[in-house]
């Protein structure tokens, strides 16, 4: 497999690693102090979780569209369900529609328990080379 995230500077900044099982990717953001947004609780910055979810979606779309260089986000919606604790975050994305021009993706991030996600993402990506 080609690990798209390994080549993206911001994914490296977040320390993201990717595991592939069949067609499904699981992305992990190992805990690091530099991800903290609230030092009192302490809690991860919501932006780091959102960025990690978006990059998980990017990687999953890239896997499905091998001829595309990089899918471009049109819009993303993130819901923060639980405070991000100072531990690793994992995420997986599911492509709900793989169109000719647009793909829709849903992704979830969790920490200790996959049944208690800390954030979800729903996003549209442009997957046609000539658009925009």
């Amino acid at each position, binding site marked *: 497999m080609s690990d798209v995230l390994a*080549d*993206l*500077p*911001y*994914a*490296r*900044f*977040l320390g993201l690693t990717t595991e592939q099982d069949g067609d499904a990717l699981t992305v992990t953001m190992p805990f690091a*102090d*530099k*991800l*903290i*947004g*609230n*030092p*009192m*609780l*302490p*809690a*991860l*910055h*919501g*932006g*780091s979780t*959102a*960025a*990690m979810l*978006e*990059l998980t979606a990017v990687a999953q779309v890239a896997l499905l569209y091998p001829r595309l*260089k*990089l899918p*471009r*986000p*049109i*819009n*993303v*919606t*993130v*819901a*923060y369900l*639980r*405070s991000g*604790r*100072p531990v690793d975050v994992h995420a997986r994305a599911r492509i709900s529609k793989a169109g000719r021009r647009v793909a829709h993706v849903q992704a979830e991030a969790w920490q*200790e*328990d996959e049944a*208690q996600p800390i954030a979800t993402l729903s996003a549209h990506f442009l997957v046609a080379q000539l658009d*925009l």
Partner: protein
Amino acid sequence: MSASPLISLLPTLATGAAHTHALGFAYESLVGDRVRIRVPWREDLVGDPDTGVLAGGLVTTLLDHVGGLAVWVALDRFESIATLDLRVDYMRAARPRADLIAEARCFRLTHSVAFVRAWAFEDHPDDPVAAAQSAYMLNSSSGRGVGANLAPRREAGE
């Protein structure tokens, strides 16, 4: 007229957490209820190395963060807040190797929720790279003190 204590705190709130510090966020200005922060362009914050454009996820973080500042401006005090949700529209590619500025405005405060809009741009908010619409829960740490996230997770009904 003397500036409120909150206004003097804004530069710290913009840059003071480990994540915002690591990303190089910088406080820009407050004009009326519109607050601005900047992220200076940096090689390791790029999304696509072939274009040199800052990553989408970084723009999301910038918009999330500046929105929080706008909520504190509207409250005119610091209290614990938490982003409930955030929608970002990416309207065009950012300019390669250019800093981004984000501006936010809290346009409604209710008892427990703040509603915010925010924009990211290089030069002018009329030509945005991205726009966000977000909601923040107020007083989000009620009952959860310092170090609360170091204990096992507990939920209502458990």
